[in-house]
């Protein structure tokens, strides 16, 4: 296959700029990602009911028992579901008792399927720890790629990965999807995946550079992308199939995770070709 992907690199950079800008705009307008309670503190109680809840009455009860609590009803194949979230004002255990009390008072017959609660301080701590871990891991990858190739390759790979993370977070923000612990795991997965994709192209580029010493960088990059294109399409396609299976059959718990991965896979494949590679050309032309 011999398609010159780089002919439209300006267009692609413009597209990326728009994507990143709208991601950042959405994130700014909504005050950062919509974090799940794992990262903000608060409680989330999910209950199964034998009949549709009387939401109006429940909300009245909640207003007195646990101010600030919100209830959302849903339904599954054979039963009614209800999830109640509340800000962490008192210890999680006490808050749970209040929520259950409100549910009982509203006349609902229910069983608690899952409960999660933590204070705001711990949420902030988890968020910070996750960020630090991601930052340090990215620095480690940059160092290795810079060592194995050249600094600009490491920088290009990390910029591409950062681009993917920002665009994916933006997409989640626009679609009002919560960033939970599982979504965080999906983000880590896509970072690894995008990095892998970029390195495959860079590796081919390094090999070509040694074989075809007098070729200009631009042609070398174009050749390397073409040579690895079948592999890129196959691997991305296959991984996408696996992730789509997760999205379709994985159930509600895995939905946020699978959705993040689906977006991330597409963006990650795109960025290796259209972000990381042009950066190397741009730098090669100047140096």
């Amino acid at each position, binding site marked *: 296959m011999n398609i010159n992907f780089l002919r439209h690199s300006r267009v692609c950079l413009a597209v990326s700029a728009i994507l990143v800008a709208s991601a950042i705009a959405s994130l700014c307008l909504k005050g950062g990602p919509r974090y799940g309670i794992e990262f903000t503190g608060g409680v989330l109680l999910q209950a199964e009911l034998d009949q549709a809840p009387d939401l109006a009455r429940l909300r009245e009860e909640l207003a007195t028992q646990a101010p600030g609590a919100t209830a959302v009803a849903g339904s599954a194949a054979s039963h009614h579901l209800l999830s109640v979230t509340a800000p962490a004002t008192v*210890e*999680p*255990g006490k808050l*749970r008792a209040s929520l259950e009390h409100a549910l009982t008072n509203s006349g609902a017959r229910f069983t*608690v*399927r*899952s*409960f*999660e*609660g*933590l204070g705001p*301080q*711990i949420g902030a*701590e988890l968020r910070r*720890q*996750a960020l*630090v*871990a991601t930052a*340090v*891991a*990215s620095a*480690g*990858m940059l*160092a290795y*790629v810079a060592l*194995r190739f050249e600094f600009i390759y490491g920088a290009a790979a990390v910029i591409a990965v950062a681009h993917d993370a920002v665009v994916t977070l933006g997409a989640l923000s626009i679609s009002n999807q919560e960033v939970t*612990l*599982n979504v*965080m*795991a*999906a983000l*880590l*997965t896509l*970072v690894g*995946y995008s*990095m*892998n994709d970029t*390195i*495959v192209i860079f590796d*081919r580029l390094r*090999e070509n550079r040694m074989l075809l010493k007098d070729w200009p960088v631009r042609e070398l990059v174009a050749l390397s992308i073409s*040579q690895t294109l*079948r*592999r890129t399409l*196959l*691997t991305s*396609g*296959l*991984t996408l*199939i*696996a*992730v789509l*299976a*997760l999205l*379709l*059959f*994985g*159930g509600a*718990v*895995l939905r946020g995770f699978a959705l993040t991965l689906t977006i991330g896979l597409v963006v990650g494949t795109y960025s290796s070709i259209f972000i990381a590679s042009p950066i190397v050309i741009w730098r090669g032309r100047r140096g």
Partner: protein
Amino acid sequence: MRLKVVLVSLVAVVSIILIGSKPLRLGLDLRGGASFVLEARSDDGRPLPVAALRETRRVVERKINAYGVSEATVQPYGAAGDRLLVQIPGSVADLSRVRASLQRQGVLEWFAVMDGPFAGSDEPLRARGGVLGAGERLLTTGAGSSGAAWYIVQASPLIRGDELRNARAEPDAYGGWSTSFTLSTGAGARFARYTEANLGRRVAIVLDGAILSVGAIEDRIQSEGRIRGARSLAEAEDLAILLRAGAIPAAIHIVEEASLDASLGADSIRQGIVAGMAGVAAVVTVLLITYGRAGINATATLLLNGLLLLALLIACDAVLTLPGIAGLILTAGMAVDSNVLVFERIRELRIRQTDAAAVQSGFRRAWATILDTHVTTLISCAFLFWFGTVAVKGFAVTLGLGLVTNLFTAVFVSRLLFEWGLRRGRQVF
């Protein structure tokens, strides 16, 4: 080549034996259960230093064990390791009781023993003619290794936990182990008067209403004393830890709590397996269509990789959580990618070379790429493991182990399969 085949079969057999030996441990987010994060704060509201955590942890362990839940664990938690994570798998019958018990302060008291031991709770009453005397209490050791024993003690304590200054295990003169303790000056003076007047009488050390140890007074004890009779260093050490724990004036706060109904956990496992099988089936189909005979090789190495990884996770006693499954997915993606990288190289090279030569140089050239991608990801795994939260660690462990097994299956084993095929005069694809 025969040696390599033997090696691969050996690895596969060992894996299967490991997988058969015990099941993979699943995290509470998959199997259901309850977890609590505890923070011990001193009376002025500040968190306790990490150094004092061991005592608190031991007290919490005793509380959890009192419920008879098997597999419940207590471990340090949080970035600074100054919190405790209590995990109770399965369905917990009475969460509010567990919660209340966890929050109750550890109370340590020493009582004068009036009578005992008795084998059952009704025997002491019979001995007293049906009613305990005024100022008497009935206490038990709880069901330990030697069975429950009951004692009648004086209701008002001789020593309270906050009057203990320190406790530690030491060897005694008879080659056994004992636990020495230090009392505050006031309590020491009181205890000296009491022990002098009551030589031969027994004293029960009680934590949270359960007797830890009963010993006879052999001497006048002022501020320094020793409790003899430990059967091992560990036993003497345990008593010392519990004595110190009783001396720490800490209140335990539950700062994080989660519970998941076991049936919901079972649901997500079932859905996860269905999704996983659908994904694998689709991927294998595409591989077989695209690569023909080589697709069979790829499928075999992918399955072997799954087998090895499962065995390794079991051998490491790892706990599989949802983020861990994310790591598995990336592992699978990279395993497929390694195969595709090699096959594409062979396809390219086969235009100008013989099959055998193309296989040789295909693996050689793809190796550099495979190594780079794997090392990069392994580096990121290492950092995520060091700096990450518990959830992120779960991701890093499955991914890291998966990449190592993949280097073995997708390169070493896959190459072996190709060479074996070539030797039998088969086409590569």
